[in-house]
């Protein structure tokens, strides 16, 4: 068994005991990335020299100073700023941008001993669900390279699924961690809003954004979130709630767990075979002692459009910072300041990003603000109330993570509206600020299917407990992709 096929927990056991060195892990990891990334293009930047230097440094440390992720390779979505390492947001606008500080999650990972091996591909500024809007070209799905890995954190999901790294970070504004996790057959967690500091995460939609975690097993995911979660002086929206050790929640005991299954989650628009895989998963949970009941969410069909309005409105404000003057891309074709702004943005932003900024500007304009933006915020309240009622009686809400398996490359052209059926499943966790994770629950035509488990605010422990119990009762997580296409 190769080192790169091991989980972070397995690597930890070997590294802490000194049975392998960080240098050995890193050499094999970098070699795997070199071979594999030619086929899937998950990385925008591989930090070869930095990772090697860090490995040597870590190997010099004494056992009592080693953190929980000592020597574990991790990949970072390229919208999380990394000191002295390019952070492009997969945009021409930031092609050569080298941040002068670290995101809080990067400092936490470093303190825990993790090794950042590079920056991962994504949809430009996290706007998309296929990784096809990346300025640097798309990433391919390791299960079948004719398909997309999902998005926007497509590189983060593909790198973990393909065995390039055991762990990665992504961000989830409207499903951007869970959907690619489902499409790539791995575990992806969007924690509660405020659970993880967003200091250093390039803002897309500030009332929705959250950093999330990717891994091949539930245990690894729980370990990674335990390391990066917590309050941060630099992010006033981060929660002061104590961070539990999530790995302690993996008891396997789901007896009496109350599971709500929204009828709409298995209805119209959801692929029949995907629905069948999810129903089978519910059967597994029932056999472990969980009690599943159907519930109604009266406003759920409005979730995607509510999300489009709110996320675009917030994005148009957040992206106004890219002016080409303080950092990032700068047009060569400006004679005055006004032209510099117009041309820098015209040349620096891609089409999807411009579209969302323009739509957000329309929604926030005096004529439409009340009837579109404020109305969407009110519908958001109604959607949140629907979920609040369900969670008064139930511990978790379960359904598919996505309505279908991965799309073929170019099939959707990255068009937002095509993804409506998927967005019904993806965006409620962001609109309501609730935690949700995706765990592999089957295959349709050799492409993975994800089971989505949504929970109470700050109750990531229950999500990990349920996902772990399910994972241990099945063997979908043991399958690995062959990285081939042309079918």
């Amino acid at each position, binding site marked *: 068994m190769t080192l790169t096929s091991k989980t972070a927990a397995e690597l930890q056991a070997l590294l802490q005991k000194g049975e392998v060195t960080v240098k050995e892990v890193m050499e094999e990891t970098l070699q795997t990335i070199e071979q594999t990334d030619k086929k899937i293009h998950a990385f925008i930047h591989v930090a070869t020299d930095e990772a090697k230097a860090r490995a040597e440094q870590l190997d010099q440390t004494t056992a009592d100073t080693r953190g929980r992720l000592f020597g574990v390779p991790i990949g970072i979505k390229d919208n999380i700023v990394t000191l002295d390492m390019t952070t492009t947001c997969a945009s021409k606008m930031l092609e050569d941008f080298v941040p002068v500080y670290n995101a809080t999650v990067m400092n936490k990972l470093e303190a825990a001993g993790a090794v950042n091996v590079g920056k991962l591909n994504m949809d430009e500024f996290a706007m998309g669900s296929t990784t096809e809007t990346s300025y640097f070209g798309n990433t391919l799905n390791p299960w079948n390279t004719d398909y997309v890995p999902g998005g926007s954190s497509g590189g983060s999901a593909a790198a973990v699924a393909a065995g390039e790294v055991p762990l990665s970070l992504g961000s989830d504004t409207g499903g951007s961690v869970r959907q690619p996790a489902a499409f790539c057959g791995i575990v992806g967690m969007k924690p509660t809003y405020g659970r993880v500091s967003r200091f250093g995460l390039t803002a897309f939609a500030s009332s929705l954004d959250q950093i999330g975690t990717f891994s091949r097993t539930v245990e690894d995911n729980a370990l990674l979130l335990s390391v990066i979660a917590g309050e941060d002086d630099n992010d006033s929206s981060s929660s002061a709630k104590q961070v539990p050790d999530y790995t302690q929640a993996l008891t396997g005991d789901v007896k009496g767990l109350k599971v709500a299954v929204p009828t709409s989650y298995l209805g119209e628009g959801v692929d029949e075979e995907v629905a069948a895989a999810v129903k089978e998963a519910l059967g597994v949970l029932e056999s472990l002692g969980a009690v599943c009941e159907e519930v109604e969410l009266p406003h759920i*069909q*409005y979730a995607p459009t509510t999300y489009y309005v709110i996320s675009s409105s917030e994005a148009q404000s957040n992206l106004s910072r890219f002016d080409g003057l303080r950092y990032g891309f700068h047009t060569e074709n400006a004679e005055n300041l006004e032209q*510099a702004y117009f041309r820098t943005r015209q040349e620096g932003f891609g089409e999807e990003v411009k579209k969302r900024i*323009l*739509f957000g500007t329309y929604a926030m304009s005096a004529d439409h603000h009340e009837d579109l933006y404020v109305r969407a915020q009110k519908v958001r309240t109604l959607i949140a109330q629907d979920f609040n009622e369900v969670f008064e009686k139930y511990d978790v809400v379960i359904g598919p993570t996505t309505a279908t398996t991965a799309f073929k490359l170019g099939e959707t052209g990255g068009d937002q509206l095509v993804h*409506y059926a998927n967005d019904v499943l993806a965006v409620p966790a962001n*609109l309501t600020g609730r935690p949700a994770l995706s765990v592999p629950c089957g295959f349709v035509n050799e492409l993975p299917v994800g089971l989505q488990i949504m929970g109470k605010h700050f109750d990531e422990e229950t999500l990990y407990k349920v996902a772990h119990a399910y994972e241990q009762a099945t063997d979908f997580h043991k399958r690995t992709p062959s990285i081939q296409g042309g079918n």
Partner: protein
Amino acid sequence: MTTFSKDDVKYFADFVRIGVSEEDKEIFSAKIADLIESVSNLKEVDVTNVEPMTHPIAMINVLREDQPKDILDREIMLASAEDQEDGSIKVPDIL
């Protein structure tokens, strides 16, 4: 059918200072019209007496002492800028 004209594209692009070509106007007028059409379903919802939700987790008055900290060196921050002079970011002519 919702319309969003090429003039509309220019009107909103000017607000956010994004340059648009004739081709851009064509593309965005069609795409944004589709989006506006799509989100029109929000008009069906009865939102009488419903408060808007601005933030997913209720948090009140997150405050701290306003004390300056030694965070980043001016030179380091200026290094990212396209052009600089005397410790400030230099911009193209305003007029």
